[in-house]
């Protein structure tokens, strides 16, 4: 049923775009979203970035977007439509759009593409991502300190490097804060499916997890935590402030606005070049949402200190000694992970149980 509905919206959108193209001149910026703009998480923040672009440039820029675009063949069609309708710059905001972006970019050498969280680039394809793992390390620390059952539930979306990195970063720091901590990981195989995310959170809570971490985009796991009571969680991608002060005790906020404004400016100035950007807490692309009073003051201080040291570059969340899950050495004492390994991370660190799905 859904593809049909998508098809119609795509058709309606393209008609609308064709009409607008006659006006000419303003730089046209397209955004492709994996979820609805009201998801309260990942897509919500990207859309906030889009609105910031509109506000910053006013009439000089026109933005278009399409929400809930499935990863895969559908994305390629949507991208082609956007490029055909005269977009100058297109942001594709999910990992699964990687091949679609590269394919469409080949066909439209004059259109600039920016792909979030991927690793394939071309002359007209940039990639950008945020070092979410820095925020995950801080969440891991809080989770390790706060858990009473020593069991932390983690809802993963897809077993891709970005998500695996988040699991490893939070696990390492949860273990550092509390050596007894165990992780239970459930793969939802979706970025956005509130019913499934709620069920997954429920299953984890039933098995004794009293901290739920999520790498999916809806607020449903927090709702499940609230319903269960005595369970804490974190805002993912967005502040998810409506669940403050509990169950949401802190959050990772992705702040894309400055980057989007920057890149649109580059297109206007004609200075846009393909690049690879990976910003973290330091540059402000990753923000840590308010740590609420549900967290003891002492733990909050530690978390903020950790944030400071990561931001200043004094501490890298992946600093050795760290072994891989099979016991082999990954990082020696004092060694820090290089970006290449992090970007392609396809293994759990030592101590996490269960196999990483391939």
């Amino acid at each position, binding site marked *: *049923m*859904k593809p*049909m*509905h998508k098809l119609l919206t795509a058709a309606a959108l393209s008609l609308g775009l064709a009409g607008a193209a006659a006006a000419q001149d303003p730089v046209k910026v397209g955004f492709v979203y994996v979820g*609805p*703009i*009201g*998801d*309260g998480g990942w897509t*919500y923040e990207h859309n906030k970035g889009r609105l910031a672009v509109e506000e910053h440039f006013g009439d000089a820029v026109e933005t278009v977007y399409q929400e*809930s675009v499935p990863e895969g063949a559908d994305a390629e069609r949507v991208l082609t439509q956007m490029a055909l309708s005269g977009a100058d710059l297109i942001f594709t905001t999910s990992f699964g759009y990687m091949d679609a972006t590269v394919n469409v970019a080949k066909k439209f050498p004059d259109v600039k593409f920016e792909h979030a969280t991927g690793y394939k680039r071309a002359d007209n394809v940039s990639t950008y991502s945020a070092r979410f793992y820095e925020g995950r390390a801080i969440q891991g620390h809080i989770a390790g300190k706060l858990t009473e059952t020593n069991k932390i*539930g983690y809802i993963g979306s897809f077993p891709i490097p970005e998500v695996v990195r988040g699991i490893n970063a939070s696990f390492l720091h949860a273990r550092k804060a509390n050596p007894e901590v165990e992780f*239970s*990981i*459930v*793969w939802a*195989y979706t970025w*956005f*499916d*509130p*019913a*499934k995310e*709620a*069920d*997954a959170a*429920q*299953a*984890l809570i*039933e*098995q*004794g*997890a009293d901290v739920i971490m999520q790498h999916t985009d*809806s*607020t*449903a796991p927090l*709702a499940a935590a609230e*319903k269960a009571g005595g369970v804490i969680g974190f805002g993912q991608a967005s502040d998810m402030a*409506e669940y403050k002060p509990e169950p949401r005790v802190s959050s990772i906020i992705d702040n894309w606005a400055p980057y989007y404004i920057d890149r649109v400016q580059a297109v206007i100035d004609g200075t846009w070049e393909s690049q690879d950007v990976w910003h973290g807490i330091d540059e402000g692309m990753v923000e840590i949402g308010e740590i609420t009073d549900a967290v003891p003051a002492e733990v909050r201080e530690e978390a903020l200190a950790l944030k400071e040291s990561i931001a200043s570059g004094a501490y890298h969340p992946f600093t050795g000694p760290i072994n891989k899950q099979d016991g082999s050495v990954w990082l020696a004492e004092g060694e820090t992970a290089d970006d290449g390994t992090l970007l392609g991370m396809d293994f759990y660190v030592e101590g996490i*149980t*269960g*196999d990483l*799905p391939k």
Partner: protein
Amino acid sequence: MDLSAINPLVLVASLMVAATPILLAAIGELVVEKAGVLNLGVEGMMITGAICGFATAVETGSPLLGFLAAFAGGAALSLVFGVLTQVFLSNQVATGLALTLFGLGLSSLMGQGYTGIKPPPTARIEIPVLADLPVVGRILFQHDWVVYASLLLVAGVWAFLRYTRAGLVLRAVGESHDAAHALGYKVVRIRILAILFGGACAGLGGAYISLVRVPQWTDGMTSGAGWIALAIVVFASWKAPRVLLGAYLFGGVAVLQLNLQAAGIAIPVEYLSMAPYLITILVLVIMSADRSRAALNAPASLGRSFHASS
């Protein structure tokens, strides 16, 4: 393999919650099919009920009013189907499919502006004394009222079809609408009433997803529950108690696969994720293997249009 982490009591309690939406939709569809009408629009009616219930609950702050609105919304949408198929004699399969498409689109339109909002919580009823019983208390007596209502509804439908005169008439209409008509029963009116009941139940099931189980609104959030409800009616060979069994079986497998994952069982996740659907297919295959019995149980006039002059 460590199964000790899975607490069977909690598992049963949560499968009841997971199964309630499909149970409600399936018991409604059972009555519709018993009256000889095949309404494939269950998914569309569920999702419409989900948004009607959600929007009303958010605006009024009362989950009860939300469920009433879902009841009315599902029934209203099914009336479209009823009028088309019973009065204008359109094809039931095509109309039912259209109803699903229409319901998905309509709910998406109505849901604009309701994403990311929290609905008011639905009260949990802990029946005094009984809720504290050791095993049974946890499983049976600590749910929200909709779970109890769904169980009462199954019992009610069962008793209605089996013991009441009205139930007998409804079944007669489903078995042979010409004979029922010859005896003076208003076939079209009875069928439309059955369709309304089915729509209202599907609406309730949808609202249970958006108000209790998730609780949140998103486009297409019923994600196929209506189709499973349809399958469960066949699985149950049109018998109310077996609908309960079928819904709980499906709910159970769905919950169990997440619990197995969380317990770190070394079965590839992909197999676990498809397990509920595989089991549904498997059961349907087994059911239909015994042709004579399956055919005996299906209402004889199922899916056939009735026109008084023919």
